[in-house]
């Protein structure tokens, strides 16, 4: 199955990002070009400080570029104001973080339900979707558990359920296995693979673990703010 004929879900052209420390400009990303097709599973790799997180944040719409074209899930992110961008994220992007970032005072069910609170869904519809998502990550028996009552692997699976519950097109994950042991890491990565293959989710995962990157179909290397060629993974 060759997916590269589909319209790109991420279209980046000449993208740049600089930080400013007082008046000093610190360029982080310079003139990036990248297209990710719908249904792609991309691993973004590169040394520490190369700008992986920065690029992921731009694509996910939680940071603003300094220049260039940034079109994701059919929207030109540069043209959206902050509130439009927030609602765009709610509908189009699921986030998976290294530290899971579950809300400690909410149980698994409530954590997963959070993104749905912003939708017009009724309570019953929300319950249905949350249970569907938690079934997918095999945690239906943990609905009422609070994050501190879950293992790291389970927490990350709740986070995955939270990321997919709103049925977004794009999943972004920044070092999703960075805090997990090998067994749990494999489980989480396999789950992402399943989401990609069976549910057609487009996934962008930042990692510097080559083993993790091998779960993806394509690998992109970032080096000092510049993208290397895209490599297809042979499985």
């Amino acid at each position, binding site marked *: 199955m060759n997916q590269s004929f589909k319209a790109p879900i991420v279209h980046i052209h000449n993208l740049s990002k600089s930080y400013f420390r007082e008046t000093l400009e610190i360029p982080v990303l310079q003139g990036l070009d990248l297209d990710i097709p719908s249904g792609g599973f991309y691993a973004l790799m590169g040394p520490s400080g190369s700008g992986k997180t920065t690029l992921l*944040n731009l694509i*996910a719409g*939680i*940071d603003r570029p300094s220049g260039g074209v940034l079109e994701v899930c059919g929207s030109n992110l540069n043209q959206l104001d*902050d*509130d439009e961008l*927030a*609602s*765009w*994220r*709610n*509908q189009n992007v699921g*986030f998976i*973080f290294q*530290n899971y*970032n579950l*809300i*400690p*005072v*909410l149980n698994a069910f*409530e954590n997963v339900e*959070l*993104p749905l*609170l*912003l939708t017009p869904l009724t*309570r019953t519809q929300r319950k249905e979707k949350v249970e569907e998502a938690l079934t997918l990550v095999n945690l239906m028996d943990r609905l009422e558990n609070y994050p501190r009552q879950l293992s790291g692997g389970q927490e990350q699976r709740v986070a995955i359920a*939270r990321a997919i519950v709103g049925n977004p097109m794009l999943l972004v994950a920044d070092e999703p296995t960075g805090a997990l042991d090998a067994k749990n890491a494999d489980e989480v990565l396999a789950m992402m693979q399943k989401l990609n293959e069976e549910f057609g989710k487009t996934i962008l995962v930042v990692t510097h673990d080559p083993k993790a990157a091998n779960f993806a179909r394509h690998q992109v290397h970032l080096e000092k703010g510049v993208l290397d060629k895209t490599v297809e993974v042979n499985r």
Partner: protein
Amino acid sequence: MKFINLIFKSLMRSKRRTFLILGTLVLSVFLITILQSLLATLDSVSNQSTEGNRFIVRHKSGLTQFLPISYGDYLRQQPEVIAVANSQWFGGYYQDPKNFFANFANDHTTMFTVFSDTVAGMTDAEIKEYQRDGTGCIVGQILADKFGWKVGDTIPLTGTIFPISPRLTIRGIFKARLASDENTLYFHYKLLEESVPFMKGKTGAFWVKTKTPEDLPRLSNRIDNHFANSPEETLSETENAFYLTFVKMLGNIGAIIHGVTIAVIIAITIVTIGTMSMAFKERTTEIAVLRAMGFSASRVLFLLMGEGLLLVTLGGALGIGLASLVAKILREVLGSALMFLQDFRLANETILICMGLTLAIGLISTIIPAIVATRKSIVEGLRAL
């Protein structure tokens, strides 16, 4: 409404901190409410209870000395005087010494003229019935409600000052503007005079009603001068004279109470700002995660404000509830010792003002930390880990 669970659980994140700040809020609101109610009560007592053309003539050497009833003849002769009523504090109790309330032996005819403002609402028939029955009595509405008394009931009153315990039949129930005035029982003066030998021809005081308030200073001087060199000298005091000094004192108390109120408000605002800032700061990453998920900055602001407002509403309601409980206790326990406390109530106006103040404190002290918390960029918030 679907966010209320999130708001509530976020507030209960650190239970100890939440209960500490809640306790501080409750105590502050309680303090403010009690002080302001006290002020409002004193105000209303001093505003309402003065019938300007009434004064009391008593023994110069104190309330425990008696005057000859015959003095009343001279008082009635004065052209400014409308009516004179002998009056004696009886100091009896009903069934149990704890059941204390004001009870007086009063002239059964003239009292209805002299106290037309504080003994009101009885029908002419009831008044006639009372005047006809020498062992009859009349009681205020509040008193009647307290003991479940009805017209026709017989009340045994145990004397403490006088060696008699009359059984009195209720002939009427009257109303007054102030609770303290309604918490009173009156019976015939003649009953006291005729059953207590040493009260024969004696009375504790005369209540005198004049045509106009302007008559009072002249008249009271004339009376006191008239009896100046007799064995029983008199002292004429107006209700107004008492309340005037009272009102003057009130001015100072009012300033102090308002000062304390403002100080408490400032202190609680500062404490709440500090607590809320700390609470929100600890959640920097969480707030960033919510926003990444699609919660807009204004939505997060709304959630954080919701927490603050929930907290102060809770604190305010508990504080005011505590205050009204304490007011009830003060009224019932200390009301017998300090008459004006029988009128101590939380006025609706005071409750509204205190609740409004609390909400304002909540709004001001939450909005600043909430704005600071939502101003931070998402990326910064995620890095804050």
